[in-house]
């Protein structure tokens, strides 16, 4: 082979070096540096103030509330995701692509709007406000409202992972089980579930990460009642606005740590079970 085409198959060493430098500089500036800033600012005054900040009662109750929301939201997302994926991936029906678009819709809606819609529907001055007040039910500025807003924001995560995977896998194995006389639940538990378990975990992981870190939507429906309706991200905002920067970054570092764990688990899942996740 002559040298000419060999050389034209890749870029020259200088172009290569330039492209790598540009890419790494951009990643360093926009992704790595912020990560370093969070932990440095959190530990600015040393370890003891850091520990004090994350053990502070308001921070602890914010952490517990955040975890409570995750514990409620993720199982609901998983359940809905399975039903939606079963209907959409296993059957053909008119309006199917519209349904898929509607499931993705929350991705295109601002988090603030995701909170706003529930205030308009269920707030004391909202459409159902008077009715709820008669029954003495408080949704907005309380836990149920924060759960609803988070459900809206995390709506597509599990469903879209499962739909993509199950469409690709097809129905052959389920048909075979059916022919052998298996019932619906049996088919699902013994055939489908083992095929989608990693994608299910992947979707659950993404929706848990988003539920834990959601800020805009929860902020709108929370009412900022300190120690009662504050999640971790809202606590970060409060501390920051009170100029308690070190404490704000200490609480933020907890969230950053969760984010890093999420990235790690996500990468592990993609590398080990990439083929069983399909889209990645």
């Amino acid at each position, binding site marked *: 082979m002559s040298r000419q085409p060999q050389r034209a*198959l890749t870029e020259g060493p200088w172009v290569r070096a330039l*492209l790598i430098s540009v890419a790494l500089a*951009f990643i360093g500036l926009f992704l790595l540096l912020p990560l370093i800033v969070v932990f440095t600012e959190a530990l600015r005054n040393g370890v003891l103030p850091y520990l004090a900040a994350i053990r502070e009662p308001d921070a602890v109750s914010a952490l517990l509330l955040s975890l409570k929301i995750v514990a409620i939201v993720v199982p609901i997302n998983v359940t809905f995701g399975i039903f939606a994926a079963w209907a959409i991936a296993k059957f053909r029906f008119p309006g199917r692509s519209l349904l898929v678009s509607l499931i993705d*819709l929350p991705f295109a809606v*601002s*988090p603030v709007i995701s909170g706003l819609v529930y205030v308009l529907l269920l707030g004391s001055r909202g459409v159902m406000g008077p009715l709820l007040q008669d029954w003495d039910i408080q949704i907005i500025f309380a836990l149920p409202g924060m759960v609803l807003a988070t459900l809206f924001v995390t709506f597509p995560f599990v469903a879209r992972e499962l739909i993509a995977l199950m469409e690709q896998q097809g129905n052959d194995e389920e048909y075979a089980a059916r022919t052998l006389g298996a019932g619906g639940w049996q088919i699902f538990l013994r055939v489908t579930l083992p095929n989608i378990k990693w994608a299910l975990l992947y979707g659950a992981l993404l929706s848990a990460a988003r539920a834990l*870190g959601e800020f805009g939507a929860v902020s709108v429906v929370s009412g900022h009642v300190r120690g009662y309706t504050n999640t971790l991200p809202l606590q*970060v905002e409060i501390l920051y606005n009170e100029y308690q920067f070190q404490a704000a970054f200490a609480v933020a570092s907890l969230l950053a740590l969760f984010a890093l764990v999420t990235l790690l688990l996500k990468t592990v899942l993609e590398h080990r079970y990439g083929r069983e996740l399909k889209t990645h």
Partner: protein
Amino acid sequence: MNSLAQQRRTLPGFGLAMGVTITYLSLIVLLPLATMLLSSLGNGPAFWWQAVSAPRVLAALRLSFGASMAAAAVDVVFGLIIAWVLVRYRFVGRRWFDALIDLPFALPTAVAGITLSALYAGNGWLGQYLEPWGIKVAFTRLGVFVALVFVALPFIVRTVQPVLLDLDKECEEAAATLGASRWQTFRQVLWPSLAPALLTGFTMALARAVGEYGSVIFIAGNLPRVSEIAPLLITIKLEQYDYVGAAAIGSAMLLLSFVLLLVLNLLQRRLQRVQR
């Protein structure tokens, strides 16, 4: 085995799964969104227009959409370079950098917000070097743009990466054998496959950036008519109990996003037709 009736007979659970899906979708997403659209017209269409065309609201909408487009466009350029480098070259730490790309997805927006303002404030990590040059990032529109560049980056990289991985090396080899320079090969062989992916990434990045709240509000300074984004204005209206005004801005944002996505999708279709 392809007729509707046959398939339904073959696998059970269609009715139950469909029923749960439609009910849950309606309760959690559709009903609340419809409430907002109706509420926004609560005082009549003239009031809606008045609320949306107020100078402060127009400025906020212009900033949200303008800065998002600029940020997504910048990310298209750097995202393509990053995806290219991650897919085509081998270097130390490549996997770590690859994993880091998803950080803006995983890092809570409030954390990103306070971190970016710590970086770019006048006395911040980078701000102290930028301000002597007359470059003010924090509390200006430039700050909004920087935050949105952070938020939108993974959308571009993650849509381009799989396309680059799937590209057939043989076409490039053929082009090279026929005497094409590397740039010609890129322009004529690679670009037609990359362009639709870049447009898809741009569209997703834009949709996300337009509504972004948490990572922007800390660095923007939120000066009315200067660096105030539309989602923030919604929360301000809500705090003033101006529910109709808040709903009007929300519906205007949805409407604009919808039109924008429609245009970009049409463009996408044309791009793919030209290719064929």
